[in-house]
Protein backbone atom coordinates (compact mmCIF):
# COMPACT_ATOMS: atom_id res chain seq x y z
CA UNK A 1 0.00 0.00 0.00
CA UNK A 2 1.42 3.35 -0.93
CA UNK A 3 1.95 6.14 1.47
CA UNK A 4 -0.28 9.11 0.79
CA UNK A 5 -0.77 11.54 3.61
CA UNK A 6 -3.35 14.24 3.00
CA UNK A 7 -1.14 17.09 1.84
CA UNK A 8 -1.78 20.52 3.32
CA UNK A 9 -5.45 19.71 3.84
CA UNK A 10 -6.16 18.18 7.21
CA UNK A 11 -4.04 16.72 9.95
CA UNK A 12 -3.69 12.96 10.14
CA UNK A 13 -2.29 10.59 12.73
CA UNK A 14 0.62 8.14 12.62
CA UNK A 15 0.78 6.03 15.77
CA UNK A 16 3.92 4.08 16.68
CA UNK A 17 4.14 0.56 18.04
CA UNK A 18 7.31 -1.26 19.04
CA UNK A 19 7.12 -4.68 17.39
CA UNK A 20 7.30 -7.35 20.06
CA UNK A 21 6.30 -5.12 22.95
CA UNK A 22 5.04 -6.58 25.16
CA UNK A 23 5.03 -9.54 22.76
CA UNK A 24 4.65 -10.19 19.04
CA UNK A 25 1.08 -11.49 19.26
CA UNK A 26 -0.09 -8.33 21.01
CA UNK A 27 1.62 -6.10 18.43
CA UNK A 28 -0.08 -8.04 15.64
CA UNK A 29 -3.48 -7.78 17.27
CA UNK A 30 -3.23 -4.11 18.27
CA UNK A 31 -1.65 -3.16 14.95
CA UNK A 32 -4.47 -4.76 12.95
CA UNK A 33 -7.04 -2.91 15.01
CA UNK A 34 -5.24 0.43 14.78
CA UNK A 35 -4.87 0.45 11.01
CA UNK A 36 -8.66 0.18 10.76
CA UNK A 37 -9.37 3.25 12.89
CA UNK A 38 -8.66 5.87 10.25
CA UNK A 39 -4.99 6.51 10.96
CA UNK A 40 -2.81 7.69 8.06
CA UNK A 41 -0.10 5.10 8.60
CA UNK A 42 1.30 2.86 11.30
CA UNK A 43 4.93 3.21 12.31
CA UNK A 44 6.29 -0.11 13.47
CA UNK A 45 9.56 -0.18 15.38
CA UNK A 46 12.07 -2.99 15.00
CA UNK A 47 13.91 -3.09 18.33
CA UNK A 48 17.61 -2.27 18.64
CA UNK A 49 19.86 -2.61 21.67
CA UNK A 50 21.26 0.96 21.54
CA UNK A 51 18.59 3.31 20.18
CA UNK A 52 20.30 6.72 20.19
CA UNK A 53 17.22 8.70 19.12
CA UNK A 54 14.88 7.15 21.67
CA UNK A 55 14.02 8.03 25.22
CA UNK A 56 13.56 5.66 28.16
CA UNK A 57 10.02 4.53 27.28
CA UNK A 58 10.81 3.27 23.79
CA UNK A 59 14.24 2.05 24.84
CA UNK A 60 12.67 -0.09 27.56
CA UNK A 61 10.00 -1.34 25.18
CA UNK A 62 12.73 -2.32 22.73
CA UNK A 63 14.64 -4.18 25.42
CA UNK A 64 11.50 -6.03 26.44
CA UNK A 65 10.79 -6.90 22.82
CA UNK A 66 14.32 -8.23 22.34
CA UNK A 67 14.06 -10.25 25.53
CA UNK A 68 10.78 -11.67 24.23
CA UNK A 69 12.48 -12.77 21.00
CA UNK A 70 11.53 -10.02 18.54
CA UNK A 71 14.02 -10.79 15.79
CA UNK A 72 14.05 -8.81 12.56
CA UNK A 73 12.41 -11.76 10.76
CA UNK A 74 9.65 -11.99 13.35
CA UNK A 75 9.03 -8.24 13.18
CA UNK A 76 8.77 -8.38 9.39
CA UNK A 77 6.18 -11.14 9.74
CA UNK A 78 4.13 -8.99 12.09
CA UNK A 79 4.46 -6.10 9.63
CA UNK A 80 3.19 -8.37 6.86
CA UNK A 81 0.16 -9.42 8.92
CA UNK A 82 -0.74 -5.80 9.66
CA UNK A 83 -0.13 -4.69 6.07
CA UNK A 84 -2.40 -7.52 4.89
CA UNK A 85 -5.34 -5.61 6.36
CA UNK A 86 -4.80 -3.15 3.52
CA UNK A 87 -6.28 -0.48 5.73
CA UNK A 88 -3.33 1.90 6.28
CA UNK A 89 0.29 1.78 5.11
CA UNK A 90 2.94 0.35 7.44
CA UNK A 91 6.28 2.09 7.91
CA UNK A 92 9.27 0.47 9.57
CA UNK A 93 11.39 2.45 11.97
CA UNK A 94 14.68 0.92 13.00
CA UNK A 95 18.40 1.64 13.34
CA UNK A 96 21.08 1.05 10.78
CA UNK A 97 22.88 -1.84 12.45
CA UNK A 98 20.01 -4.34 12.42
CA UNK A 99 19.54 -3.46 8.74
CA UNK A 100 23.23 -4.00 7.98
CA UNK A 101 23.25 -7.29 9.85
CA UNK A 102 20.15 -8.50 8.00
CA UNK A 103 21.67 -7.30 4.74
CA UNK A 104 20.24 -4.07 3.26
CA UNK A 105 19.15 -5.74 0.03
CA UNK A 106 17.51 -8.63 1.78
CA UNK A 107 15.89 -6.23 4.25
CA UNK A 108 14.50 -4.06 1.44
CA UNK A 109 13.24 -7.06 -0.51
CA UNK A 110 11.61 -8.73 2.51
CA UNK A 111 10.06 -5.49 3.72
CA UNK A 112 8.62 -4.77 0.28
CA UNK A 113 7.33 -8.33 0.06
CA UNK A 114 5.71 -7.90 3.46
CA UNK A 115 3.77 -5.00 2.01
CA UNK A 116 5.66 -2.33 3.95
CA UNK A 117 5.40 1.14 2.41
CA UNK A 118 8.58 2.77 3.67
CA UNK A 119 11.41 2.95 6.18
CA UNK A 120 12.70 5.47 8.69
CA UNK A 121 16.26 4.95 9.96
CA UNK A 122 17.04 7.81 12.34
CA UNK A 123 20.77 7.17 12.62
CA UNK A 124 21.29 7.41 8.88
CA UNK A 125 21.59 11.11 8.11
CA UNK A 126 21.59 12.18 4.47
CA UNK A 127 25.41 12.03 4.33
CA UNK A 128 25.44 8.31 5.08
CA UNK A 129 22.34 7.40 3.12
CA UNK A 130 23.46 6.95 -0.47
CA UNK A 131 23.75 3.17 -0.53
CA UNK A 132 20.96 2.28 1.84
CA UNK A 133 18.40 4.74 0.49
CA UNK A 134 18.97 3.56 -3.07
CA UNK A 135 18.56 -0.04 -2.03
CA UNK A 136 15.24 0.79 -0.38
CA UNK A 137 14.06 2.88 -3.32
CA UNK A 138 14.91 0.17 -5.83
CA UNK A 139 12.78 -2.24 -3.80
CA UNK A 140 9.89 0.22 -3.99
CA UNK A 141 10.10 1.54 -0.43
CA UNK A 142 9.77 5.18 0.56
CA UNK A 143 12.71 6.61 2.51
CA UNK A 144 11.78 9.22 5.07
CA UNK A 145 14.50 11.51 6.41
CA UNK A 146 14.42 13.58 9.56
CA UNK A 147 14.75 17.30 10.02
CA UNK A 148 15.55 18.64 13.50
CA UNK A 149 15.23 22.01 15.21
CA UNK A 150 19.03 22.19 15.06
CA UNK A 151 19.17 21.58 11.29
CA UNK A 152 20.47 24.59 9.38
CA UNK A 153 18.80 25.47 6.07
CA UNK A 154 21.18 23.48 3.90
CA UNK A 155 20.58 20.35 5.94
CA UNK A 156 16.80 20.87 5.79
CA UNK A 157 17.06 21.21 2.02
CA UNK A 158 19.15 18.03 1.76
CA UNK A 159 16.79 15.99 3.95
CA UNK A 160 13.79 17.23 1.98
CA UNK A 161 15.48 16.38 -1.31
CA UNK A 162 16.39 12.89 -0.12
CA UNK A 163 12.98 12.08 1.40
CA UNK A 164 10.17 10.36 -0.41
CA UNK A 165 6.67 9.83 0.97
CA UNK A 166 6.95 12.59 3.56
CA UNK A 167 9.46 14.55 5.61
CA UNK A 168 9.76 13.75 9.31
CA UNK A 169 10.07 16.92 11.32
CA UNK A 170 11.52 16.32 14.80
CA UNK A 171 9.68 18.80 16.98
CA UNK A 172 12.01 18.81 19.98
CA UNK A 173 15.75 19.07 20.40
CA UNK A 174 16.03 15.70 21.99
CA UNK A 175 15.00 12.10 22.05
CA UNK A 176 11.57 10.51 21.83
CA UNK A 177 9.34 10.67 24.87
CA UNK A 178 6.38 12.65 26.13
CA UNK A 179 6.88 16.34 26.87
CA UNK A 180 4.44 18.41 28.86
CA UNK A 181 4.70 21.16 26.25
CA UNK A 182 6.09 21.35 22.74
CA UNK A 183 8.62 24.08 21.98
CA UNK A 184 6.93 27.28 20.93
CA UNK A 185 8.80 27.46 17.64
CA UNK A 186 7.52 24.11 16.28
CA UNK A 187 5.19 25.77 13.81
CA UNK A 188 7.93 28.07 12.58
CA UNK A 189 10.12 25.03 11.91
CA UNK A 190 7.25 23.29 10.08
CA UNK A 191 6.70 26.37 7.97
CA UNK A 192 10.38 26.56 7.14
CA UNK A 193 10.46 22.91 6.10
CA UNK A 194 7.52 23.56 3.77
CA UNK A 195 9.52 26.16 1.87
CA UNK A 196 11.90 23.34 0.92
CA UNK A 197 9.46 20.67 -0.19
CA UNK A 198 6.04 19.87 -1.60
CA UNK A 199 5.99 16.56 0.26
CA UNK A 200 3.71 16.20 3.26
CA UNK A 201 5.41 17.07 6.55
CA UNK A 202 4.86 14.95 9.65
CA UNK A 203 5.72 16.15 13.14
CA UNK A 204 7.04 13.70 15.73
CA UNK A 205 8.94 13.36 19.06
CA UNK A 206 7.40 14.64 22.25
CA UNK A 207 3.78 14.62 21.07
CA UNK A 208 1.60 12.75 23.52
CA UNK A 209 -1.75 14.47 24.08
CA UNK A 210 -4.82 15.42 22.10
CA UNK A 211 -4.17 19.01 23.07
CA UNK A 212 -0.67 18.95 21.54
CA UNK A 213 -2.03 17.27 18.43
CA UNK A 214 -4.66 19.95 17.96
CA UNK A 215 -1.97 22.65 18.12
CA UNK A 216 -0.43 21.14 14.99
CA UNK A 217 -3.63 21.55 12.91
CA UNK A 218 -2.94 23.77 9.94
CA UNK A 219 0.81 23.41 10.43
CA UNK A 220 1.70 19.74 10.02
CA UNK A 221 0.14 17.13 7.74
CA UNK A 222 0.53 14.38 10.27
CA UNK A 223 1.30 13.95 13.95
CA UNK A 224 3.43 10.97 15.00
CA UNK A 225 2.76 9.67 18.50
CA UNK A 226 4.99 6.99 20.00
CA UNK A 227 5.91 6.98 23.69
CA UNK A 228 2.37 7.83 24.84
CA UNK A 229 1.03 4.74 23.08
CA UNK A 230 3.88 2.55 24.29
CA UNK A 231 3.09 3.82 27.79
CA UNK A 232 -0.48 2.54 27.50
CA UNK A 233 0.81 -0.90 26.56
CA UNK A 234 3.35 -0.74 29.39
CA UNK A 235 0.49 -0.15 31.78
CA UNK A 236 -1.38 -3.14 30.33
CA UNK A 237 -4.01 -0.95 28.68
CA UNK A 238 -5.42 -1.10 25.17
CA UNK A 239 -4.09 2.01 23.37
CA UNK A 240 -7.31 2.13 21.29
CA UNK A 241 -9.06 4.81 23.36
CA UNK A 242 -5.99 7.08 23.35
CA UNK A 243 -5.66 6.71 19.57
CA UNK A 244 -9.36 7.56 19.10
CA UNK A 245 -8.91 10.64 21.24
CA UNK A 246 -5.83 11.70 19.26
CA UNK A 247 -7.71 11.08 16.00
CA UNK A 248 -10.55 13.33 17.03
CA UNK A 249 -8.01 16.04 17.92
CA UNK A 250 -6.83 15.92 14.31
CA UNK A 251 -10.20 17.07 13.02
Amino acid sequence: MTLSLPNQGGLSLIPYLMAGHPDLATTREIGRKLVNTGIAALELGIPYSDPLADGPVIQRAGQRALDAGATTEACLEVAADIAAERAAPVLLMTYVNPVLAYGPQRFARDAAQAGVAGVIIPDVPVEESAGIARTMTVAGLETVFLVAPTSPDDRIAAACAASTGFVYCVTVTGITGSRSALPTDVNALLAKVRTHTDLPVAAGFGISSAEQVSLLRGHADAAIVGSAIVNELDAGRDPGPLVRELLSACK
Partner: protein
Amino acid sequence: MSERTRFGRFGGQYVPETLMAALDELQTAWLELREDNGFLDELRARQATFIGRPTPLYHAERLTEHFGGATIHFKREDLCHTGAHKLNNALGQAVLARRMGKKRIIAETGAGQHGVATATVCARFGLPCTVYMGAEDMRRQEVNVRRMRMLGAEVRPVSSGTATLKDATSEAIRDWVTNVRDTHYIIGSVVGPAPYPEMVRELQRVIGDEARHQYLASENTLPDTVVACVGGGSNSIGMFAGFVDDPSVELVGVEAGGLGVETGQHAAATVGGQAGVLHGSFSYILQDQFGQVLPTHSIAAGLDYPGVGPEHAMLAELGRASYVAVNDDEAVAAFKLCTRLEGIMPALETSHAIHHVGELAREMGPGARILLCFSGRGDKDMHTIESVSPTDMPVIGGPQ
Protein backbone atom coordinates in the same frame (compact mmCIF):
# COMPACT_ATOMS: atom_id res chain seq x y z
CA MET B 1 33.47 17.13 5.12
CA SER B 2 32.68 13.58 4.03
CA GLU B 3 36.21 12.76 2.81
CA ARG B 4 37.47 13.44 6.33
CA THR B 5 34.97 11.24 8.12
CA ARG B 6 36.30 7.84 7.21
CA PHE B 7 39.28 5.57 7.72
CA GLY B 8 39.07 3.43 4.62
CA ARG B 9 35.57 2.00 4.75
CA PHE B 10 35.29 2.56 8.51
CA GLY B 11 34.07 5.53 10.51
CA GLY B 12 31.29 7.87 9.39
CA GLN B 13 28.55 9.71 11.24
CA TYR B 14 25.61 7.46 12.09
CA VAL B 15 23.78 9.71 14.52
CA PRO B 16 20.35 11.31 14.81
CA GLU B 17 19.91 14.42 12.67
CA THR B 18 19.72 16.59 15.80
CA LEU B 19 23.48 16.07 16.33
CA MET B 20 24.64 16.63 12.78
CA ALA B 21 24.92 20.40 13.02
CA ALA B 22 26.91 20.04 16.25
CA LEU B 23 29.31 17.60 14.60
CA ASP B 24 29.82 20.08 11.76
CA GLU B 25 30.44 22.85 14.28
CA LEU B 26 32.89 20.66 16.20
CA GLN B 27 34.70 19.65 13.04
CA THR B 28 35.04 23.24 11.93
CA ALA B 29 36.28 24.39 15.33
CA TRP B 30 38.72 21.51 15.57
CA LEU B 31 40.20 22.01 12.10
CA GLU B 32 40.67 25.69 12.86
CA LEU B 33 42.12 25.25 16.32
CA ARG B 34 44.56 22.50 15.45
CA GLU B 35 46.34 25.03 13.23
CA ASP B 36 45.96 27.85 15.73
CA ASN B 37 49.16 28.73 17.57
CA GLY B 38 47.31 30.27 20.49
CA PHE B 39 45.39 27.05 21.06
CA LEU B 40 48.45 24.86 20.59
CA ASP B 41 50.56 26.98 22.92
CA GLU B 42 47.85 26.89 25.58
CA LEU B 43 47.56 23.14 25.19
CA ARG B 44 51.32 22.59 25.42
CA ALA B 45 51.64 24.77 28.49
CA ARG B 46 48.79 23.02 30.26
CA GLN B 47 50.14 19.61 29.28
CA ALA B 48 53.42 20.49 30.91
CA THR B 49 52.14 21.98 34.13
CA PHE B 50 48.82 20.24 34.66
CA ILE B 51 49.30 16.76 33.19
CA GLY B 52 53.03 16.51 33.86
CA ARG B 53 54.20 15.97 30.30
CA PRO B 54 56.45 14.74 28.92
CA THR B 55 55.95 11.46 30.72
CA PRO B 56 59.16 9.42 31.07
CA LEU B 57 60.39 6.51 29.04
CA TYR B 58 61.27 3.78 31.50
CA HIS B 59 63.52 0.78 31.03
CA ALA B 60 61.79 -2.17 32.71
CA GLU B 61 65.00 -3.98 33.60
CA ARG B 62 63.63 -6.63 35.87
CA LEU B 63 60.80 -7.61 33.54
CA THR B 64 63.31 -7.68 30.71
CA GLU B 65 65.44 -10.04 32.78
CA HIS B 66 62.45 -12.08 33.93
CA PHE B 67 61.24 -12.80 30.42
CA GLY B 68 64.80 -13.53 29.38
CA GLY B 69 64.44 -11.89 26.04
CA ALA B 70 63.75 -8.62 24.35
CA THR B 71 64.47 -5.30 26.01
CA ILE B 72 61.29 -3.81 27.42
CA HIS B 73 60.52 -0.12 27.81
CA PHE B 74 57.40 1.54 29.21
CA LYS B 75 55.99 4.86 28.10
CA ARG B 76 54.74 5.99 31.50
CA GLU B 77 51.22 7.35 30.94
CA ASP B 78 50.43 6.16 34.46
CA LEU B 79 52.39 9.21 35.60
CA CYS B 80 49.95 11.61 33.97
CA HIS B 81 47.93 13.58 36.53
CA THR B 82 44.91 11.45 37.54
CA GLY B 83 46.76 8.29 36.62
CA ALA B 84 46.14 7.50 32.97
CA HIS B 85 46.46 8.75 29.42
CA LYS B 86 42.82 9.82 29.49
CA LEU B 87 43.72 13.33 30.65
CA ASN B 88 45.54 14.09 27.38
CA ASN B 89 42.23 13.92 25.58
CA ALA B 90 40.00 15.40 28.29
CA LEU B 91 42.25 18.43 28.67
CA GLY B 92 42.43 19.02 24.92
CA GLN B 93 38.68 18.74 24.46
CA ALA B 94 37.96 20.94 27.46
CA VAL B 95 40.17 23.71 26.07
CA LEU B 96 38.38 23.27 22.73
CA ALA B 97 34.93 23.34 24.36
CA ARG B 98 35.80 26.53 26.21
CA ARG B 99 36.91 28.15 22.99
CA MET B 100 33.65 27.00 21.36
CA GLY B 101 31.73 28.69 24.16
CA LYS B 102 30.11 25.51 25.48
CA LYS B 103 28.67 25.87 28.96
CA ARG B 104 28.36 22.28 30.10
CA ILE B 105 30.36 19.06 29.73
CA ILE B 106 29.17 15.48 29.63
CA ALA B 107 31.17 12.28 29.42
CA GLU B 108 30.82 8.52 29.69
CA THR B 109 33.19 6.35 31.62
CA GLY B 110 33.97 2.68 32.07
CA ALA B 111 36.89 2.29 34.43
CA GLY B 112 36.23 5.76 35.71
CA GLN B 113 39.60 7.04 34.43
CA HIS B 114 38.04 9.07 31.66
CA GLY B 115 35.32 10.25 34.03
CA VAL B 116 37.92 11.33 36.57
CA ALA B 117 39.97 13.05 33.85
CA THR B 118 36.89 14.91 32.63
CA ALA B 119 35.75 15.83 36.14
CA THR B 120 39.27 17.09 36.78
CA VAL B 121 39.44 19.44 33.81
CA CYS B 122 35.90 20.62 34.54
CA ALA B 123 36.92 21.45 38.10
CA ARG B 124 39.95 23.29 36.76
CA PHE B 125 37.86 25.35 34.32
CA GLY B 126 34.74 25.71 36.47
CA LEU B 127 32.47 23.86 34.04
CA PRO B 128 29.47 21.84 35.23
CA CYS B 129 30.08 18.18 34.47
CA THR B 130 27.84 15.12 34.21
CA VAL B 131 29.40 11.68 33.85
CA TYR B 132 27.40 8.64 32.77
CA MET B 133 28.61 5.37 34.23
CA GLY B 134 27.19 1.88 34.17
CA ALA B 135 25.83 0.78 37.54
CA GLU B 136 28.00 -2.33 37.32
CA ASP B 137 31.12 -0.25 36.67
CA MET B 138 30.25 2.07 39.56
CA ARG B 139 30.43 -0.94 41.79
CA ARG B 140 33.71 -2.18 40.30
CA GLN B 141 35.40 1.21 40.26
CA GLU B 142 33.96 2.68 43.40
CA VAL B 143 37.01 4.75 44.28
CA ASN B 144 36.83 6.56 40.97
CA VAL B 145 33.15 7.32 41.56
CA ARG B 146 34.13 8.97 44.81
CA ARG B 147 36.92 10.88 43.12
CA MET B 148 34.55 12.25 40.46
CA ARG B 149 32.04 13.36 43.09
CA MET B 150 34.81 14.95 45.14
CA LEU B 151 35.79 16.90 42.03
CA GLY B 152 32.27 18.24 41.75
CA ALA B 153 30.94 16.10 38.92
CA GLU B 154 27.54 14.51 38.92
CA VAL B 155 27.82 10.77 38.30
CA ARG B 156 24.65 9.37 36.74
CA PRO B 157 24.22 5.63 37.08
CA VAL B 158 23.04 3.80 33.96
CA SER B 159 21.15 0.56 34.58
CA SER B 160 19.84 -0.15 31.08
CA GLY B 161 21.22 -3.01 29.00
CA THR B 162 24.39 -4.43 30.50
CA ALA B 163 24.95 -1.47 32.86
CA THR B 164 28.50 -1.01 31.59
CA LEU B 165 30.41 1.31 29.25
CA LYS B 166 28.28 0.60 26.16
CA ASP B 167 25.12 1.70 27.92
CA ALA B 168 26.80 4.68 29.57
CA THR B 169 27.93 5.80 26.10
CA SER B 170 24.43 5.42 24.63
CA GLU B 171 23.02 7.40 27.53
CA ALA B 172 25.61 10.16 27.14
CA ILE B 173 24.78 10.45 23.44
CA ARG B 174 21.07 10.72 24.30
CA ASP B 175 21.88 13.50 26.76
CA TRP B 176 23.86 15.23 24.02
CA VAL B 177 20.95 14.92 21.56
CA THR B 178 18.83 16.71 24.14
CA ASN B 179 21.26 19.42 25.24
CA VAL B 180 23.38 19.78 22.14
CA ARG B 181 23.19 23.56 21.90
CA ASP B 182 25.18 24.36 25.03
CA THR B 183 26.80 21.03 25.88
CA HIS B 184 30.05 19.50 24.69
CA TYR B 185 30.37 15.74 24.88
CA ILE B 186 33.93 14.68 25.72
CA ILE B 187 34.06 11.15 24.32
CA GLY B 188 36.76 9.17 26.09
CA SER B 189 38.23 7.19 23.24
CA VAL B 190 38.76 7.13 19.47
CA VAL B 191 35.18 5.99 18.93
CA GLY B 192 31.94 7.77 18.07
CA PRO B 193 31.00 9.75 14.98
CA ALA B 194 33.51 11.84 13.04
CA PRO B 195 35.34 14.02 13.95
CA TYR B 196 35.85 12.29 17.32
CA PRO B 197 38.06 9.36 16.25
CA GLU B 198 40.45 11.64 14.40
CA MET B 199 40.34 14.42 17.00
CA VAL B 200 40.97 12.11 19.95
CA ARG B 201 43.85 10.48 18.08
CA GLU B 202 45.44 13.85 17.49
CA LEU B 203 45.06 14.72 21.18
CA GLN B 204 46.59 11.37 22.15
CA ARG B 205 49.39 11.31 19.58
CA VAL B 206 51.50 13.26 22.06
CA ILE B 207 52.17 9.81 23.59
CA GLY B 208 53.64 8.34 20.43
CA ASP B 209 55.46 11.49 19.37
CA GLU B 210 57.17 11.83 22.75
CA ALA B 211 57.92 8.12 22.94
CA ARG B 212 59.53 8.00 19.49
CA HIS B 213 61.69 10.99 20.28
CA GLN B 214 62.67 9.60 23.70
CA TYR B 215 63.37 6.13 22.36
CA LEU B 216 65.62 7.44 19.61
CA ALA B 217 67.42 9.66 22.12
CA SER B 218 68.11 6.89 24.60
CA GLU B 219 68.44 3.82 22.37
CA ASN B 220 69.66 5.39 19.12
CA THR B 221 67.19 3.28 17.21
CA LEU B 222 63.48 2.56 16.95
CA PRO B 223 61.73 -0.26 18.80
CA ASP B 224 60.90 -3.39 16.81
CA THR B 225 57.46 -3.70 18.30
CA VAL B 226 55.08 -1.28 19.96
CA VAL B 227 52.36 -2.77 22.16
CA ALA B 228 49.29 -1.19 23.76
CA CYS B 229 45.98 -2.31 25.19
CA VAL B 230 42.81 -1.55 23.25
CA GLY B 231 39.48 -0.69 24.80
CA GLY B 232 38.04 1.88 22.45
CA GLY B 233 41.61 2.30 21.32
CA SER B 234 42.83 5.75 22.37
CA ASN B 235 46.08 5.03 24.22
CA SER B 236 47.04 2.56 21.50
CA ILE B 237 46.21 4.84 18.57
CA GLY B 238 48.05 7.71 20.29
CA MET B 239 51.09 5.49 20.67
CA PHE B 240 50.77 4.01 17.17
CA ALA B 241 50.47 7.48 15.65
CA GLY B 242 54.11 8.12 16.50
CA PHE B 243 55.29 4.99 14.66
CA VAL B 244 52.73 4.24 11.97
CA ASP B 245 54.96 5.77 9.30
CA ASP B 246 57.97 3.68 10.39
CA PRO B 247 57.49 0.48 8.38
CA SER B 248 60.04 -1.41 10.48
CA VAL B 249 57.99 -0.95 13.64
CA GLU B 250 55.39 -3.59 14.29
CA LEU B 251 52.21 -2.36 15.98
CA VAL B 252 50.27 -4.69 18.26
CA GLY B 253 46.95 -3.97 19.97
CA VAL B 254 45.89 -6.11 22.91
CA GLU B 255 42.16 -6.59 23.47
CA ALA B 256 40.32 -8.07 26.42
CA GLY B 257 39.86 -11.81 25.97
CA GLY B 258 37.77 -12.04 29.15
CA LEU B 259 37.12 -15.67 29.94
CA GLY B 260 38.42 -16.62 26.49
CA VAL B 261 37.31 -15.43 23.07
CA GLU B 262 35.91 -18.91 22.37
CA THR B 263 33.57 -18.62 25.39
CA GLY B 264 31.84 -15.56 23.96
CA GLN B 265 32.54 -13.76 27.25
CA HIS B 266 35.05 -11.18 26.12
CA ALA B 267 35.43 -7.67 24.78
CA ALA B 268 37.76 -8.29 21.84
CA ALA B 269 35.95 -6.49 19.02
CA THR B 270 38.76 -6.59 16.47
CA VAL B 271 39.76 -10.18 17.18
CA GLY B 272 36.25 -11.57 17.60
CA GLY B 273 33.75 -9.10 16.14
CA GLN B 274 32.15 -8.16 12.85
CA ALA B 275 31.81 -4.89 10.99
CA GLY B 276 28.78 -2.87 12.05
CA VAL B 277 27.62 0.44 13.47
CA LEU B 278 27.78 1.32 17.14
CA HIS B 279 27.70 4.79 18.69
CA GLY B 280 27.88 6.61 15.42
CA SER B 281 30.63 4.87 13.51
CA PHE B 282 31.14 1.83 11.34
CA SER B 283 33.82 -0.41 12.79
CA TYR B 284 34.28 -3.83 14.32
CA ILE B 285 31.73 -4.54 17.01
CA LEU B 286 30.47 -7.50 18.99
CA GLN B 287 26.98 -8.24 17.77
CA ASP B 288 24.62 -11.14 17.28
CA GLN B 289 23.33 -12.28 13.90
CA PHE B 290 20.51 -9.72 14.11
CA GLY B 291 22.83 -6.76 14.68
CA GLN B 292 22.02 -6.45 18.37
CA VAL B 293 25.08 -5.38 20.32
CA LEU B 294 26.26 -8.15 22.62
CA PRO B 295 27.05 -7.96 26.32
CA THR B 296 30.78 -8.05 26.94
CA HIS B 297 32.99 -9.26 29.70
CA SER B 298 36.36 -8.13 30.92
CA ILE B 299 37.88 -7.90 34.34
CA ALA B 300 39.15 -4.49 33.21
CA ALA B 301 36.23 -2.08 33.11
CA GLY B 302 38.12 0.20 30.73
CA LEU B 303 38.37 -2.53 28.12
CA ASP B 304 34.82 -3.75 28.59
CA TYR B 305 33.39 -2.20 25.42
CA PRO B 306 31.89 -4.05 22.44
CA GLY B 307 33.41 -1.80 19.81
CA VAL B 308 36.75 -0.44 18.70
CA GLY B 309 37.76 2.83 17.05
CA PRO B 310 37.33 2.82 13.26
CA GLU B 311 40.98 3.63 12.63
CA HIS B 312 41.95 0.38 14.35
CA ALA B 313 39.51 -1.49 12.13
CA MET B 314 41.28 0.03 9.14
CA LEU B 315 44.78 -0.74 10.48
CA ALA B 316 43.69 -4.32 11.14
CA GLU B 317 42.20 -4.73 7.68
CA LEU B 318 45.32 -3.26 6.08
CA GLY B 319 47.51 -5.51 8.20
CA ARG B 320 49.46 -2.46 9.43
CA ALA B 321 48.67 -3.38 13.02
CA SER B 322 47.82 -6.75 14.48
CA TYR B 323 45.45 -7.48 17.32
CA VAL B 324 45.46 -10.21 19.94
CA ALA B 325 43.28 -11.05 22.93
CA VAL B 326 44.56 -11.62 26.47
CA ASN B 327 42.31 -13.19 29.11
CA ASP B 328 41.33 -12.01 32.59
CA ASP B 329 43.54 -14.46 34.48
CA GLU B 330 46.55 -13.65 32.33
CA ALA B 331 46.03 -9.95 32.99
CA VAL B 332 45.79 -10.55 36.75
CA ALA B 333 49.04 -12.52 36.71
CA ALA B 334 50.74 -9.78 34.72
CA PHE B 335 49.45 -7.19 37.19
CA LYS B 336 51.10 -9.04 40.05
CA LEU B 337 54.29 -9.68 38.18
CA CYS B 338 54.81 -6.09 37.16
CA THR B 339 53.89 -4.79 40.61
CA ARG B 340 56.44 -7.04 42.33
CA LEU B 341 59.22 -6.83 39.77
CA GLU B 342 59.09 -3.18 38.84
CA GLY B 343 57.37 -1.57 41.79
CA ILE B 344 54.85 -0.15 39.39
CA MET B 345 51.24 -1.18 39.80
CA PRO B 346 49.65 -1.23 36.36
CA ALA B 347 45.98 -0.67 35.60
CA LEU B 348 44.22 -3.93 34.79
CA GLU B 349 43.78 -2.56 31.27
CA THR B 350 47.53 -2.08 30.92
CA SER B 351 48.12 -5.50 32.49
CA HIS B 352 46.59 -7.14 29.42
CA ALA B 353 49.28 -5.56 27.28
CA ILE B 354 52.00 -6.48 29.78
CA HIS B 355 51.06 -10.14 29.52
CA HIS B 356 51.43 -10.00 25.76
CA VAL B 357 54.74 -8.15 26.04
CA GLY B 358 55.97 -11.13 28.07
CA GLU B 359 54.95 -13.56 25.36
CA LEU B 360 56.55 -11.43 22.68
CA ALA B 361 59.75 -10.90 24.66
CA ARG B 362 60.27 -14.63 25.06
CA GLU B 363 59.50 -15.20 21.41
CA MET B 364 61.61 -12.38 20.02
CA GLY B 365 64.60 -13.09 22.22
CA PRO B 366 67.53 -11.00 23.40
CA GLY B 367 68.49 -8.09 21.22
CA ALA B 368 64.91 -7.36 20.22
CA ARG B 369 63.21 -4.20 21.48
CA ILE B 370 59.67 -3.78 22.74
CA LEU B 371 57.97 -0.55 23.72
CA LEU B 372 54.77 -0.71 25.77
CA CYS B 373 52.28 2.07 26.28
CA PHE B 374 51.81 1.86 30.03
CA SER B 375 48.34 3.39 29.85
CA GLY B 376 47.51 3.80 33.52
CA ARG B 377 48.14 2.99 37.13
CA GLY B 378 46.42 0.23 39.03
CA ASP B 379 45.40 1.75 42.34
CA LYS B 380 41.82 1.81 41.11
CA ASP B 381 41.96 -1.95 40.62
CA MET B 382 43.18 -3.00 44.08
CA HIS B 383 39.67 -3.99 45.02
CA THR B 384 39.17 -6.19 41.96
CA ILE B 385 42.55 -7.88 42.30
CA GLU B 386 41.93 -8.61 45.96
CA SER B 387 38.53 -10.06 45.19
CA VAL B 388 39.84 -12.50 42.59
CA SER B 389 42.91 -13.42 44.60
CA PRO B 390 42.26 -12.54 48.22
CA THR B 391 45.38 -14.03 49.78
CA ASP B 392 48.95 -13.04 49.28
CA MET B 393 50.20 -13.06 45.75
CA PRO B 394 52.32 -15.81 44.30
CA VAL B 395 55.66 -14.33 43.53
CA ILE B 396 57.19 -15.32 40.28
CA GLY B 397 60.80 -14.41 40.39
CA GLY B 398 60.09 -11.45 42.63
CA PRO B 399 61.71 -10.36 45.84
CA GLN B 400 61.23 -13.03 48.48
